[in-house]
Each structure stands twice: as structure tokens, then as C-alpha cells.
């Protein structure tokens, strides 16, 4: 009965979404706040219903109820419990349910924490959430029902593919979805502003935490997916410019631009219309990302037709939401009051340039991803747009963004002093130059681009903290005062510095790939292979039995200057029943670099083919991404951005009372 009540909860949630998408709007249109406030219980009820439905589906997976088609197709009684649970969202139907559940969670959060928000804005925002929810629930119930039953129930499930049973793959989709769906809240805010025609700095402040949350999760999700590909696929690469990856990168680029333009809007009430546009674009790209990955359109345009109902539904959702919101934008945006002209040299204009560059990056990725699809649909030719295209087009754009980042941070709001800012970043620029020159001197003959990239990275990391440092440091001030200033500095300033430095670190890791060493060789036992500063020696091969596979392990010693520093056992697993062979890459982290060994064919004379890499600083890429996300969290903790903001504001007001001077919170 749990299964069918879960199923009914889903249908009930659909009905609630229908009312939630109509009644609050009617309320705000007719100025009836009682009617409009129905959005709040509706959003909360929807969250409870979908939470119950998701729990019921999870229960069915855990107890292996194979009368559910999704369970039968994706589970197995002997699967470990963790993967039974991860299996809930490891397929199209379940992942869509997770999507709406996250949507409803965000909706309920706005409903509960939004007391400080203008009640009209809250009602309209929740109504727009209702539309999205309604569309997805229709899609789920009528084309991708996770609760579809089949009788007679099979005695056993089908999926046993051990490759997909990986902790990385269990966590990666929910993170990415939190990012995608987080942008839906921002979208709802944007459409609500278009409907009511009111758009001010306060709006930007309500929206910023949500943009930040979506951005943090997207950053982590992308980094996680990239690391998973790196360690499982055995090719030593971490980014393949694959359409699935691009699909997550595009909302990230648009979201990053949105993050910055919302800051301008909050501070200076400028870039309002552009911010709205970015909010719509970010969500549109998230929708595209969700469907690109799940619809199978990527493997071939023609697979879209294999399930026409689903394909048509997806097209309708994309058209209605993207086309509809853009049409609303075109109609309403001109009537919104534009304010806040700004000087050409100021932080806001630097941020505007950053926005233009990020938008150009995003458009480039979009072209590179969709052009092959469009070409295949129109002419039937299959082409692939790969790394060379993206490296050539995005490389210069990224370099420009990085060059401007510390400069922009050092400019003041309203009217900046370009010369002063340039002076302030001189230290950083010098640091970068010295680093690049030193590297060229030390690693003679290394690739020029790598040295340039590393110099840029050092410049960015040092430059990120230039602004913070110049605001704290003052001549002839005791350290105590400087510490007080550091603590008093808005957390968002710290967050920005940390996130920018994180990008610098990631850039460092990317640049260092230029000094990487790759050897593809037939390795004899005992033969030392030079990998940069290290030597790898395969000492012996041994076989071992796993539960349903046999594996060959190559016991490899890594040494430096004759002294052993680590051992690693890359493996090759053979699953005879399914006749699949998988390589388990052997990875050793030494400092920030990694030795990466993946095995190939074994030969009769005892030698074995292997790909061996020395990847200096490679972990900096993911550490950098995690630091970026951490910067986002620090920024989110800024008291001005806390969601229950009005109550805080009251306390701040008390604190600001001159009669009772207190340190800032």
C-alpha cells in the first residue's frame, strides 16, 4: 500500500501545483492578500506530498518491489543497500522525481523563510514555481511514471552493471540537480518581478542567496563529475568537452554572470533588465541540461523519436518556459524603470565587462554543443566539435577574464580610480610575472602557454586578496585594529576573494598539465619508466578473485632518485559472465601532483601495456573548485544575505543605534 499511496501523493501534488499556479496570481491581481497567501500552504503541502512519494519509491527500491517497472529495470536483490538507494535516482523516472522534489524543497523554503519578503513578491514567485512544478509533474505522471507497475512482477531485477555502482556516481546527480533546480527559484523571482512590474534593489537581495546556493551546488557537481570521469574512465583526462559536461558548464557560466550582475543591481540598482535576462537564461540552460542528459538526444538526434510522447513533451516544456518567459521579458521589460547610469571606470562597469565576457563564453559553449546536433537533424551528417575548438575560443576569453578580475575587485563602486587600482594590483602582476619567469628558467624548454597560464594563476591568487588587504592594512595601525577591520569586513568580500583565489588555483592545475608526462609503453617486469621526477617500476603481476570478477594487479613501485616513495596497484578486472573488461586506474597523490597508471593488454612474455602519467599539480583543479564553492558558502553567510533577512535587519538597526554602540555582528 505504501507504493500506491506514494503514487497517489504524486497525483495529489499535481492537483496542488495546479491551484498553486493559478490562485496566488489571481489574488495578487485582484489585490486580495488572503487569496494570494494560499501560495504558502500550497508550497509546503506540495513539498510534503512529493517527499512522501519519494520516500515510497525509495522504500520500493530498498525492499526490491519488482512490480515497479523502474525497480525491476534498475535494481537487484543482491545489490548493496547504498546502491539500492542511489538506484532511486540512477534512472530517468526516478531522477525526474528527485528533480521536482528539490524544486518543492526550494519552494517550501521560500514559503517558510520568506516572512521578510514583500508578500506580493512571495505569492507571485511561488505561483511561478507552481507552473514549473505542474509541467514536470505532468511529464512525470503521464510519460515517465516511476510508479508504473507490471504484472506479473518479475522475480528478479535486471541491472547488475557494476560499473555504475560507484560512490561518485551516486552523489554527482543530486548535487548537479540542486544546482539546476536552484536556478529555477531565481527564474521564478524574475518572472514574478516581470508580472508585478516591480523590480528594485531589495529584489536583488532576496535573489542573491538563491543564486549563490545554485552556483555552489553546480560548482561542486561539475567538479565531482569531472573527478569521477578522471578516475574511472582510465584515460587520464578530466574534461572531455562532451555535450553532457557542456550541458552543466553552460548554466554555471550564466549563473556566474548572474551572481555578479545581481551584486551590481543590489549595490547600484543598475543592470536590472540584464539581470532579469540572465536569470531567465540560466534556468533555460538548466532545463536544457536536464533534458539533454536524460532524453538520449545526445547519443543521436533520432533516439528522440524512439519515445515520441516523451520527446514531444520535452519540446513543449522547453518551448513554453524558454519562449514564454522570453516573450514576457520582451513585453514587460521595457516598462520597468531603468536607473543607475554608471561611470566607465568603476567596479560596476568592470562587472559589466565580466558579464559580457562570461556571456560570450556561454554562447561559445552553446554553439559548440548544439551545432553538431542541429547539423545532424538537418542534414544527417554527424560531426563532433571537440577540444581544439573550445580551447581556441575559450582560452583567450578566459585569459581576458582572469586579467580583469583583480582589477575589477580593486575598483571602487560608483567612481573608481583606474590608476590607483592598477597600482594596487601591481604586486599581484609582478608576482605572476616572476613566477612565470622562474618557471621558464627552472623548467627550461617547457611549453610557453603553461608558463603563461601559471603566471596568470599566481597573479589571480595574489590579486584576489589585494582588495581585502588594502581595506585592512593601514600604515602605523596596531595589529589589533587591523584584525578588527578584517573581522568587520563584509563576509561577501571575503567570499569573493576566496572564490577568485579558488579559480586561480584551478587555473594553476590546468596550466600545469603542460608539464605533464605521458608514457604509453609495453612494460617489462622490473623495468623503470621515467615519469618526470619519478620512476615507476612494475615489480610483479598477480591475479586475484573478486566476487564476480577476476583481476590482474600490477604491483608498481614509484621511486624518486632511487628511493621508493609509494606503491600502487592498478588493476584490470574481467567479468566473465558479462564478458566486460574494466581498468581500475592506479592513482598516487604526491604533493599536489598525481601518478596515474592504467593497464592495457597483457602479453605472453609477461609484459603488459600501460598508460602512465605524471600530472603535476593536477589535484589543484578540484581543490580549486572546492575552494570556489567554499568562497560561495562564506559569501552566503554574510548577514545581509541570510534568508530570514527582515528580522535580522531589525537587530542590525538596534545595533546601529548610536545610543548603544556595539561591534558589528
Amino acid at each position: 500500500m505504501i507504493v500506491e499511496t506514494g503514487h497517489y501523493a504524486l497525483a495529489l501534488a499535481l492537483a496542488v501545483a495546479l491551484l498553486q499556479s493559478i490562485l496566488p496570481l489571481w489574488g495578487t491581481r485582484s489585490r486580495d492578500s488572503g487569496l494570494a497567501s494560499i501560495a504558502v500552504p500550497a508550497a509546503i503541502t506540495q513539498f510534503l506530498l512529493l517527499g512522501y512519494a519519494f520516500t515510497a519509491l525509495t522504500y520500493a527500491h530498498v525492499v526490491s518491489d519488482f512490480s515497479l517497472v523502474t525497480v525491476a529495470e534498475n535494481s537487484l536483490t543482491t545489490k548493496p543497500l547504498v546502491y539500492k538507494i542511489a538506484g532511486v535516482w540512477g534512472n530517468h523516472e526516478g531522477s525526474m522525481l528527485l528533480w521536482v522534489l528539490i524544486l518543492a524543497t526550494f519552494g517550501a523554503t521560500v514559503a517558510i523563510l520568506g516572512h521578510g519578503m514583500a508578500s506580493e513578491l512571495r505569492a507571485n514567485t511561488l505561483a511561478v514555481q507552481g507552473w514549473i512544478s505542474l509541467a514536470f509533474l505532468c511529464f512525470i505522471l503521464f510519460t515517465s511514471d516511476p510508479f508504473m507497475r507490471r504484472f506479473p512482477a518479475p522475480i528478479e531485477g535486471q541491472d547488475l552493471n557494476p560499473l555504475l555502482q560507484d560512490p561518485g556516481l551516486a552523489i554527482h546527480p543530486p548535487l548537479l540537480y540542486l544546482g539546476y533546480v536552484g536556478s529555477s527559484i531565481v527564474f521564478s523571482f524574475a518572472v514574478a518581478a516581470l508580472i508585478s512590474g516591480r523590480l528594485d534593489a531589495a529584489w536583488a537581495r532576496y535573489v542573491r542567496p538563491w543564486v549563490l546556493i545554485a552556483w555552489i551546488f553546480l560548482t561542486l557537481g561539475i567538479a565531482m563529475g569531472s573527478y569521477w570521469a578522471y578516475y574511472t574512465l582510465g584515460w587520464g583526462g578530466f574534461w572531455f568537452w562532451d555535450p553532457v559536461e557542456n550541458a552543466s558548464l553552460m548554466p554555471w557560466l550564466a549563473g556566474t554572470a548572474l551572481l555578479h550582475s545581481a551584486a551590481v543591481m543590489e549595490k547600484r540598482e543598475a543592470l536590472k533588465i540584464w539581470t532579469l535576462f540572465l536569470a531567465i537564461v540560466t534556468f533555460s540552460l538548466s532545463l536544457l541540461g536536464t533534458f539533454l542528459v536524460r532524453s538520449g538526444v545526445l547519443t543521436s538526434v533520432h533516439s528522440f523519436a524512439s519515445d515520441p510522447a516523451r520527446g514531444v513533451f520535452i519540446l513543449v516544456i522547453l518551448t513554453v518556459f524558454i519562449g514564454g518567459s522570453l516573450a514576457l521579458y520582451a513585453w514587460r521589460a521595457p516598462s520597468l524603470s531603468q536607473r543607475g547610469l554608471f561611470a566607465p571606470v568603476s567596479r560596476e562597469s568592470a562587472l559589466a565587462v565580466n558579464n559580457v565576457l562570461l556571456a560570450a563564453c556561454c554562447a561559445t559553449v552553446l554553439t559548440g554543443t548544439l551545432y553538431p546536433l542541429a547539423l545532424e537533424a538537418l542534414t544527417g551528417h554527424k560531426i563532433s566539435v571537440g577540444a581544439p575548438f573550445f580551447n581556441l575560443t575559450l582560452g583567450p576569453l578566459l585569459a581576458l577574464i582572469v586579467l580583469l578580475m583583480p582589477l575589477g575587485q580593486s575598483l571602487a563602486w560608483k567612481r573608481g580610480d583606474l590608476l590607483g587600482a592598477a597600482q594596487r594590483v601591481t604586486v599581484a602582476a609582478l608576482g605572476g610575472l616572476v613566477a612565470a619567469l622562474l618557471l621558464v628558467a627552472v623548467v627550461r624548454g617547457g611549453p610557453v602557454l603553461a608558463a603563461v597560464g601559471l603566471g596568470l594563476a599566481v597573479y589571480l591568487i595574489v590579486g584576489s586578496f589585494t582588495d581585502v588587504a588594502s581595506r585592512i592594512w593601514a600604515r602605523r595601525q596596531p595589529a589589533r585594529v587591523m584584525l578588527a577591520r578584517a573581522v568587520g569586513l563584509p563576509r561577501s568580500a571575503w567570499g569573493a576573494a576566496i572564490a577568485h583565489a579558488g579559480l586561480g588555483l584551478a587555473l594553476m592545475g590546468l596550466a600545469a598539465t603542460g608539464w605533464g608526462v605521458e608514457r604509453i609503453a609495453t612494460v617489462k617486469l622490473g623495468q623503470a619508466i621515467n615519469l618526470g621526477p619519478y620512476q615507476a617500476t612494475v615489480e610483479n603481476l598477480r591475479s586475484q578473485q573478486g566476487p564476480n570478477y577476476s583481476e590482474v594487479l600490477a604491483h608498481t613501485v614509484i621511486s624518486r632518485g632511487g628511493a621508493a616513495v609509494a606503491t600502487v596497484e592498478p588493476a584490470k578486472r574481467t567479468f566473465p559472465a558479462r564478458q566486460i573488461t574494466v581498468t581500475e586506474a592506479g592513482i598516487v597523490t604526491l604533493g599536489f601532483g598525481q601518478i596515474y597508471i592504467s593497464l592495457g593488454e597483457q602479453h605472453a612474455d609477461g609484459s603488459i601495456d600501460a598508460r602512465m602519467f605524471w600530472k603535476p599539480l593536477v589535484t589543484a583543479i578540484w581543490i580549486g573548485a572546492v575552494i570556489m564553492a567554499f568562497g560561495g558558502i562564506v559569501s552566503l553567510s554574510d548577514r545581509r544575505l541570510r534568508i530570514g533577512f527582515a528580522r535580522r535587519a531589525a537587530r542590525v538597526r538596534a545595533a546601529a543605534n548610536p545610543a548603544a554602540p556595539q561591534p558589528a555582528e
Partner: protein
Amino acid sequence: MTWAVFAMMTLAVVLALARSLSERREGFGVDDSDVAFYRGLLAEANDDVRCGLVAPEDAMSTRAEIGRRLLASLDSASGNLLRVSRRRRPRRASAVLAIVLVLPLVALASYLKVGAPSQPDMPTASRRAGGNFTPAAAISEVETRLAADPDDGRGFQAIAPIYLRMGRFQDAARAYRAALRLLGENAQERAALGQALTMAADGVVTAEARAAIDQALADDPKQPVARYFHAAAIEQDGDKDRARQLWEALEADTPAGAPWMDAVREHLDGLSGATQSNVEPRHSSQTRDDIAALSPEQRSDAIRGMVEGLAEKLSKDGLNLQGWLQLIRSYVFLGERQKAEAAAASARAHLAGDAQALARIDELVGQLGLKG
């Protein structure tokens, strides 16, 4: 019971939504939140001055600008305040109507379109009556053995039919191929390979499947599975007369009660009536359909009987040598050696008159290292 729970869920939702409509408040006031927001900005500006982050004279102009923005925001809000509509009662009444009528109707209608209200949960634990035979356990056991010795043809031979029954047709085809490669030619398994390939292609006899079936027929022209799919292939090619002949011949040779009889008759009916374009692989889904007709308790028995069903069939019709050999092999690979030995004994008893068959049984018992 299920319906009562549905009704309670619906009632709870209706009450939760309708409650907010009882609120008398109407109209949107000038939002305090905006004022609070700009007050917050002012407080921040003061903080900045206190911490020495901003010079006091810069802060002055910032404060002035915040003040201007606050006034502008209040202006736009009061503009909206003027048009408050008066007729609240009919509006609220229709909202209540929507909650009380539309909500349950939409929920019910969409649920009835997709739901299966009368079906209970079916956790696997509740579906196993007695015995602990589960295909997953059997498969993982055999897969473990295969991992230890990938050239164990008998392992593939045992696992292939289980894959086939579970609907993992690609895996079944791979296992049959491996078994044929390792153990040599065998018409029954060659035919089963054809069946697996056909079912993997959604019932279309592909060229590869056809080759396997033809080879099986060349070895053993009487092999029923091969004959079945051969006829299906001919029918699929559009040669209806020839297909009819083949189906009729197969029907004539099929002993009463054979599991594929119904499917053969269906094909004959299809040919005499409307044309049937696609081949529904009835033979194998037959077991599943039979299980469908049973009650849950009987169903679990039938499931457990995937192997034991074969034993039962053999106890009635004990002259099927291939069946006995399969049963003995299956028991051994499920680790039930005693049952395997018992099966070998009954096989000998049933086939006592057939010296050739007895030799095959002895050979297999020797190979598997069974007692007896």
C-alpha cells in the same frame, strides 16, 4: 482501506489550503520589508564608517542615495495600492470551490489514469514461500565460479537459461555462445541462442538469430525451439503458405500440454485471420503468463519452481533425456548436490530401457563428480 487512506490524504490537503482563505486580511500594504531593506543598507553604511572602511564624507552621499531609492520604492508601491477591488465574497467562494472540488477531481482523475489501486506492495521478501532459491543468488554464485574459471562451459550452460528467463537476453546470448564454444555443438543450446537473439531484437528474427536456428535444425531437424523460430522467421519474411505448413507440422509433432502449444496455435490463427507481422516470442513469455494467472501464494511456488517445475514435469514425463540432464546440472550449480544425485537416480529409473541415455547420464554424473 487504500481508498480510505487516499480520502484522508485528500482531506488533509484540502483543509491545509482552505484554512488560509478564512483570513479576513485584504489588500497589500506598503511593504514593511522594503523599508526594512533600505534601513538595513543605511545601517551597513554606518557600520562601514565605524570600522573605518569608508570615509565619513563618502558615506554621506551613499546615505543620500539610499534615501532617494527608498522614496522611489514607496512611490511605486503606493501607486499599486489605489486599485483595491471590492467584491471579495464571490472571489473567495470560487477559490473554495476550486479547492474542494477541482483539487480532488484532478488528483483522482490523474491517479486513475496511471495508478493500480488494488495492487499490494510486493517486496521480494514476502514473495518467497519456503525455499531460498532466488535467481540473483544463483546467478551471483555461478558468476563467482565463472570468475574463478572463465573456461567453465557448464557454468555458462547453467546460467544462460536463467538469464533468458529474467529477460536479460543479451547476457543470455553471450552465455549460450560461450557454452557452445567451450562445450562443443549442441542443437538445443544453438536453438536457444537463436531464441535469445530474437528476443533481444524485440521478437524480430535477425540474420544472426536465423543463422543459429538454421544450424540447430541442421544438427537436429526435430529440435522444437529451432522449428518454432524457423517458422516465425519464414512468417516474418512474408511467405505465409510455407509458414502455415511449418506451424502445422510443428503442431502435429508437439505432445499435448507442451508449453509452446498455445503460441503455435496463436500463430496459426493469426495466419488464417488477420496477417500478423511481428513475431511475439510466446514460447518463453509463456511461463510468465502462466504465473500471472496464479494467486500470490501459488505464484511464489511457481517462481521457486523455475528449477523444480522442470523436476515435476520430468516426474510425469520421464522420457525427456535433455530435461533430466539440464535438471542435474542446474541442481549442481545451485549447490544442491543431494537433489542432483536424487535426480540422477530417478532419471536412471525412468530411462532404464534406453542404454544410450543411461550412458549419457553416467557420463554427466562422472563429469560433475556426483555419487551414484
